């Protein structure tokens, strides 16, 4: 009871600090005479544009037995059935020429920020996939007893971790990308995968090495080959232990993906930069971009937490 009251106080303090921070942001906006206008951002996320249905060729508007209108060609064929549209711009008996507007249509379209978000999701998912595969291979190479294989993986990890991602992206795009004639998107995925794989490899290695030696011995003593023992005994256990650090790495991947905007991939960050200039609402746009990243990273960590819970059945 006592601790509950105590926690209540601390929680209240937490909320208070958050409110204060929000107020601070608001006040700083005031100080530079900034006019907050969040509506301006909305069309960049989704917008609702009217588009027109036009006549494909010349004809007449006729009504059928049910009283629904339709465009009939001069030869007498029904060209456009107008019964499915609400806002009709024509009447029965109208003479229509090719290109005339018959009806207007309201359509929800995704804005450039959402398009950027989709690119960011795509690039992150592809990179995630390749980073896991490559990281697993390099992590396994790292614990190999073959010195050549082992040193190759050490060299790889050192090389990648010792250079900035931004530089790697430029190298992949301008060097490898030119040699193999790669698209920007592919180059971005390759750079992010290579980068993340080095970290995944270290996590995988640490995870495997944290499994007691007796597990491998028990598996081998049952007649399992080394690969079978890895697949059925060691890796499932290592996977569970590496989930939290892997989650952190994948969240980094999502955030690092913003760097690919330097090679003109229109991801969320690049979309934000493009939108800012036209929107006259730079603060709102950047806050929205940050929020969208946060949405991605928090859904990923939520998904991984779910997975962790499911795997904890054997604890």
């Amino acid at each position, binding site marked *: 009871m006592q601790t509950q009251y105590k926690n209540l106080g601390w929680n209240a303090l937490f909320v208070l600090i958050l409110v204060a921070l929000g107020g601070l942001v608001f006040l700083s906006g005031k100080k530079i005479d900034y006019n907050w206008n969040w509506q301006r951002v909305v069309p960049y996320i989704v917008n609702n544009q009217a588009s027109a249905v036009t006549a494909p060729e010349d004809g007449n508007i006729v009504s059928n037995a049910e009283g629904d209108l339709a465009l009939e060609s001069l030869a007498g064929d029904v060209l456009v059935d107008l019964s499915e549209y609400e806002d009709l711009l024509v009447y029965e008996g109208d003479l229509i020429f090719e290109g005339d507007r018959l009806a207007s249509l309201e359509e929800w379209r995704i804005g450039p920020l959402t398009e950027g978000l989709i690119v960011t999701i795509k690039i992150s998912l592809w990179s995630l996939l390749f980073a896991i595969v490559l990281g697993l291979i390099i992590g396994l190479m790292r614990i190999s007893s073959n010195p050549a294989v082992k040193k190759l993986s050490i060299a790889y990890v050192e090389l990648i971790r010792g250079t900035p991602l931004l530089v790697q992206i430029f190298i992949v795009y301008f060097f490898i990308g030119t040699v193999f004639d790669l698209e920007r998107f592919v180059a971005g995925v390759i750079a992010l995968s290579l980068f993340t794989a080095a970290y995944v490899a270290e996590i995988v290695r640490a995870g495997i090495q944290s499994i*007691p030696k007796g597990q491998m011995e028990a598996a081998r003593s049952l007649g399992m080959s080394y690969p079978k023992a890895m697949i059925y005994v060691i890796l499932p256990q290592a996977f*569970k232990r590496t989930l939290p650090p892997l989650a952190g790495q994948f969240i980094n991947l999502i955030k690092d993906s913003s760097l690919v905007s330097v090679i003109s991939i229109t991801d969320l960050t690049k979309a934000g930069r493009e939108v800012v200039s036209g929107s006259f609402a730079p603060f709102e746009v950047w806050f929205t971009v940050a929020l969208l990243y946060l949405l991605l990273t928090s859904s990923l960590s939520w998904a991984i937490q779910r997975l962790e819970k499911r795997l904890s059945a054997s604890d």
Partner: protein
Amino acid sequence: MTRDYQGNDMIVADKINKIYPNGCHALKDVSATVHRGEVVVIVGPSGSGKSTFLRALNQLETISSGSITVDGTDMYAKSTDINKLREEVGMVFQNFNLFPHKTALGNVMLAPLKVAKRDAATAETDARDLLKRVGLSDRMDNYPSHLSGGQQQRVAIARALAMKPNIMLFDEPTSALDPEMVGEVLDVMKGLAAEGMTMVVVTHEMGFAREVADRVLFMEDGELLVNETPEAFFDDPENPRLRQFLSMVL
């Protein structure tokens, strides 16, 4: 294949030596033979090489020189598939080494499914029978973390038996157990011995050695010093080192 081996010598170790990479000479010219259906118990002070010897018998440790023939197969012959050979040599460890991500049933079924490639229904029926045999019919769906030490070790025995081995190796199977659980594991082992399983057991349970063993081996400092019937071993030990050892443990 060795499954068809009909001979009487299940394990023949001939002058085996083991020198660890750090220079430790853990086995010195050890020679021993285990016959079909025999229960051989190995005792000796800590660090005498008992585990090293046992682990050499399924090649968890490779030997530096000498030869080992198991179930009629020369273990170090070029044509020998060590994984095939290991299917016929079950091993039980001091720390159980159960797979923590599998239930008791899953532990027992894993190797039959993935190594012996038996079909799932057969593997499950066999596994249930084995767990019943070690007295765990009501614990089949428990994960190792929800089993007592004695129960875990019995699952480990069932897991080794699931591959239908001809030989069982035990490395101090009761040393990590609370005293009240030692009996249940030893009972399972006695049952196995009574059914004619060839067994090599490293243990400090002198009572088990005296009661169940056909022969008792004494190792010290990497050497096999005594290889005797339990009567001669316990009641009338000739070797002065063995006498000293027995005076300490009995």
